[in-house]
């Protein structure tokens, strides 16, 4: 369908110097395209959270394909579809039988399908990181394979508010950012606002923090951390200061109605459980 595809197919293998691929793998077509690009490229860079970790669309992994289709084409509040038509893989039109790409069971990050050399994290990637990656690649000063561009330390390391952090952070309450008047000169976490800076790779320059928003974790985990959400959940659980299980549960119910959305916003397909949910859905 895409005329450019045949152009690329005609190219010699390994004839592209660098391919920057963004987006997660959602359709069978995506798999095909990235395999093709891999074959033709010397270096493949996963570009942005979706390619790196699966990204926000990866949260769809909490639902089955049929649930997703039913919701998207029939139930969503903005949908008008009186006949209840949903997409099918093939369709008989007067012009002949048309085929659409198949929806995969799960969204996958890029390296679930092909070998990836480098990662540029971020949703969206910040200009400084893109520049650094380009500089390194163009100068031939290539880092070890598998490197994620950005800092090797968590965001707190470069966050200006880190020095305002009290000696101990133990929280009786969690607050979402719209529920408090945020003091922009004080560590957000110390104010009880769920900031994922401690668990997130730095390198962005703490742009969101400077803009009055806590970190939501788009740069993903650090090298030593296997599962971003599990780590995030574990550190939050550690600093919630209740001996009473019931009170702690109350915090979760009240302030974390959507833990998967909070802790795996960008990385569910990269998690150890990968969100392979097979229940009825909510």
């Amino acid at each position, binding site marked *: 369908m895409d005329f450019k595809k045949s152009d690329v197919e005609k190219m010699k293998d390994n004839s592209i110097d660098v391919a920057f691929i963004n987006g997660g793998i959602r359709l069978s077509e995506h798999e095909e395209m990235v395999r093709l690009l891999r074959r033709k490229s010397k270096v493949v860079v996963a570009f942005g959270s979706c390619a790196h970790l699966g990204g926000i669309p990866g949260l769809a992994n909490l639902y089955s394909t049929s649930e997703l289709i039913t919701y998207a084409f029939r139930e969503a509040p903005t949908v008008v579809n009186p006949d209840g038509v949903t997409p099918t893989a093939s369709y008989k039109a007067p012009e002949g039988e048309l085929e659409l790409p198949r929806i995969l069971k799960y969204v996958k990050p890029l390296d679930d399908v092909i070998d990836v050399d480098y990662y540029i994290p971020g949703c969206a990637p910040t200009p400084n990181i893109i520049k650094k990656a380009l500089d390194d690649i163009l100068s031939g000063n290539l880092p070890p394979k598998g490197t994620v561009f950005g800092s090797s*330390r968590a*965001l707190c*390391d470069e966050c200006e508010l880190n*020095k305002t952090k009290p000696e*101990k952070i133990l929280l009786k309450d969690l607050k979402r950012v719209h529920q408090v008047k945020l003091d922009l000169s004080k560590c957000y976490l110390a104010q009880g606002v769920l900031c994922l800076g401690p*668990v997130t790779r730095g390198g962005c320059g703490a742009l969101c923090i400077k803009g009055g928003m806590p970190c939501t974790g788009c740069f993903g985990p*650090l090298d*030593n951390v296997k599962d971003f959400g599990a780590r995030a959940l*574990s550190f939050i659980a550690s*600093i919630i200061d209740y001996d009473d299980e019931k009170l702690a549960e109350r915090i979760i119910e009240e302030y974390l109605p959507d833990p998967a959305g909070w802790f795996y916003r960008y990385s569910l397909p990269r998690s150890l459980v990968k969100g392979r949910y097979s229940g009825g859905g909510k």
Partner: protein
Amino acid sequence: MGEVRIGVYICHCGKNIGGVINPSRVAEFASKLPNVVVARDYMYMCSSPGQMLIEEDIKRHNLNRVIVAACSPRMHEPTFQGVLKKAGLNPWLLEMVNIREHVTWVHEDVPDKAEEKAKELVYAAVMRAQHLYEITIHRLPVVKSALVIGGGIAGIRAALDLANAGIKVYLVEKKQSIGGKMAQLDKTFPTLDCSKCILTPLMVDVARHPNITIYAYSEVVDVSGSAGDFKVKVRLKPTYVDWSKCTGCGYCTERCPARAPREFDEGLGTRKAIYFDFPQAVPRRPVIDPKYCLWFTKGICRACEKLCPVGAIDFNQKDRYIELNVGAIIVATGYELYDMTKLREYGYGKYKNVITGLQLERLSDADGPTKGKIVRLSDGKEPETVAIVLCAGSRDEKHVRYCCRFGCAAAIKHIYYVKHSVPEAKVFVLYTDIRAFGKGYEEFYQRLRGMDDVYFIRGRPAEIFEAKDGSLIFDVFDSNTGQLLSIKADLVVLESAVVPPKDWESLRRMLKISCDPGGFALELHPKLRPFETTADGIFLAGAIQGPKDIPDTVAHAAAAAAAAIGFLSKGEVESTPYLAVVNEDLCSGCGLCASVCPFDAIEIKEEGGRRIAKVNVIRCKGCGACAATCPSGAMQQNYFTDTQIVSEVSALAGGAK
């Protein structure tokens, strides 16, 4: 350390393991695993030939990892670590696999599957062993001095024992005098010695001992540092008397016109506003109670100042603070009586003639408010009948769950007091069980129950009411006679439940030691290490570990002192091998580790413009809380790093292939 070279040793443990699975097949399996140089099985790995086998292999095959698949590491990990050490290897290059408790003992009936499991566990250990590394134990010298908190009989005994062993002791007591509860008692069971007669010589010994400094009327306000090197801040409360000038002549206390309820008499008697706790007080230096002193309350009088022959009165005194540096701390803060007004159905605090056992001690004491005569408090008359109620608030889900451990013996002693003071009185003892378990207690019980007009009633009153003449009436079902008895008594004595002191909780938090459900300090092991705590260098003496009578308290205190002496004379403290270790390069200084550390072992320090977590190697107890919390994986725990655990877990998840 270069190439990984692993030796695997499968123990038969006689028939314990060998009778269920075939250890040589497991060894055969292990020999093919990555980096395994040698794998063997042996009848008793822990025997000296077994140990020798490993030692020789280490030398011959140049092994640098050893895996022993045998029993629980609780049992023999130290044994095999010793083998490694002897062979010149770091002991933490050992990995144990428990194929006895975890395999053959529990899966005896399915030997095939058991063997499969043993293999899988060995496989996981081999994968984990690839990532083991040498662990260094840090050592720090100890300060050879000790702090004893609390100057009751437990603190006194512990302080004397430590001091006699040549250790410098600081004894901090919150009241004016040391002596504690024992000083308030008239007599002690089961021998009925005069309590003060046996206690005061010890108090004097403490005061005279060159190695002991007493800080009376003082309290510990802050504890920092760690085992072997504690820094302790002590508040010396203002006494308004310059104790360095005072000679203890007592002239001031005789002439003071202001009266106050006497704490030492449990509120029954009165004392002056300037006072000693009791005549034999140590130190014999008075304090002024500003709540009752006429100068503080009304701005008049100052008689004591005018009369003091040495000019020691100083109304301008303020709090003073001193800092002590000690290697060990002994906690001997004792107990308190449970507030009997909470046991409302018995009317303590509402009816005058309902008193506590400790109040009876004061009535019986010659130095007490009645000069030793036991009387009804409402009218001062001799009681014709006295009812002693045991388990008042003890063994009660609504009050105190546990047994007070001395109420029974105290009640028996109290029968004696009553019969001694008012020989013709009738005494009713209302008990649920008599627990006369100590040495000589049963004999004591026998002696008192043989007395005339002493009636033991097995039952517990439910409600006590006041009759019109101020005596007390209640019904009690006596399961000895099977009758519901209606009793009228002139005096009711409640053998109160026992609880930790009110201000104990803040001290406990300062010391960072745990407590049991009753709030008492938690010992390291209830049977084997009852006078140590989870915090190194902090020991427990007496009732703060749980209710105790005097013989048990003294024994416990002496044991705590012996343990502290042992600790201090070792000369140095060792870090745990399971230390938390920071990869400073990865650390972002977010500080969450410090937030969760229960031992205050982590500090966030500024270094080269960055904030980095630093672990105090002596304070760290290797609990792993920081490592589990660290969001960036920079904090790892020795012997349990993420890499070690994940490789073990993935090996298990993937199966033995």
